[in-house]
């Protein structure tokens, strides 16, 4: 689903920066976000649906690909994948620190929508037989 069909070299610098910075809770993963034509994160289903009709599927990996002819079907520009750090649904992806190009092989890619980080409250594993926090 996230496999690159074309890679735009110009994006690689930003992508490398992203990988070096990492992102909270991602581990070694780069996160794929489905975005609309304005770079606003939308539900993954939009990209999945486009991927299913053939024409849009090729753009899900990067709508601004340098190689190959420009798409001729208008709606194929609407939804595509953006790869970068945590960006919530409804927010616009940052102009720097991410890429519309699928990471090169060897980089783990996961859907941002599937990532839930834990451990931000409480004691890891609970306090067990330790003292409570009540009063």
């Amino acid at each position, binding site marked *: 689903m996230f496999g690159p069909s074309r890679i735009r070299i110009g994006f690689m610098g930003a992508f490398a920066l992203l990988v070096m910075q990492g992102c909270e809770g991602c581990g070694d993963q780069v996160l794929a976000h489905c975005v609309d034509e304005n770079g606003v994160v939308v539900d993954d289903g939009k990209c999945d649906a486009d991927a299913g009709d053939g024409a849009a599927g090729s753009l899900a990996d990067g709508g601004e690909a340098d190689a190959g002819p420009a798409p001729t079907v208008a709606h194929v520009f609407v939804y595509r994948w953006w790869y970068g750090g945590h*960006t*919530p*649904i409804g927010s616009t992806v940052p102009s720097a620190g991410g890429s519309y190009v699928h990471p090169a092989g060897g980089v783990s890619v996961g859907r941002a929508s599937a990532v839930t980080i834990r451990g931000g409250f*409480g*004691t890891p594993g609970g306090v067990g037989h330790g003292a*409570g*926090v*009540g*009063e």
Partner: protein
Amino acid sequence: MRRAIVDKRDGWEETVAGQGLLYHTAGGIPYWDEGACYVFTPSEIDRLEVATGELWSMCLKAAEHVIERKRYAELGIPASAVPLIEYTWEAEPPALYSRFDLCWDGSGAPKMLELNADTPTSLLEAAAIQWLWLEAVFPGRDQFNSLEPKLIAKWKELIGGSYLFPGPIHFAHDGAIEDRMTVGYIMKTAMDAMRELKTSRPIVELRMDQIGWSWWRRRFEDLADAPIANIFKLYPWETMTGQAFGEHLAGTMRRMHWIEPAWKVLMTNKGLLAILWELFPGHANLLPAYLDGPRGMTDFARKPRYSREGANVQIVRGGQVLEETGGAWGAEGHVFQALALLPDFDGNRPVLGSWMVDQDPAGLGIRESEGLITGNTSRFVPHYIDPKSPSGTGSYRDNATGRAS
């Protein structure tokens, strides 16, 4: 008010464990101690109830004063917590319960030692275990205890009204057994309310560290990655706001209810004792208290503003440290409160936990210790009301076969 010696029920450990009190013995010493009880007259209970209601009204005014004058820094409250406090104070999201700790021997006015409004524990013991003890040992007697019906009524109001967001009700704790008992009991009262309402909502229990954050959906989630919209948590607000997920609290506060709400952090802050004394100087139920030092007092208790379970408390008498406890609190600052020595009933010193459910006084739970500081190893001792009870600070023997002496 008197302390009575009573016979323990045969097999009391199994009995109370079967009722949910798994933490009945700590380090080989009974935490639940039914070998003694406190006996009150109806008029003494009336005085406790009136004092509790009056103290609650004053605490609300003190909290309002702090918010209006923005005196957060004086109480050691971080700036990040202020939007949460102010929003929840105005929006009045669901709030459930609190407990005053009072110093009283039945004479004079009960004195407020502190208010535990955010994460009060010992609820199961106060609401259920001592009531079941009363029914078994002193049937026909009464007890200052309407905790369970009031908690159920409050849940009915929340669930039956439009006070909760759609979806499950989550219940979170940090895993300690004593905290789980309180959370489990609160869950039970919520389920009782749903049964009475003939409705249902999913109930989900989880540990605080199992709460998830989805950046993509910008929401807190449970272990099934389902959204958390209504959550009762037995976990201090002052700790939550300083932890990694604390940064997400303000952005989600309009879409979810944390019970207790964030404004309770003002009520549970011991700095409120000084604000109370400033606003109501000389009130019979208050002790002089100051934020900036003992101000000439030679007999006082120095308490951290965010202490739990009697930790880091220092008792000073005649200018000398009489008793002191360790712990990890105090960096946030202290409050200096005039010393009110807990009464001595044959070497046993009770602190009276006077409960509130929502805005109403709701019951009494007593913990006693040998020392002057009530900590997490103090014993819980039940009580009952006897219209003919004499008062005194000695211990009397009561007939435990069913009739009070």
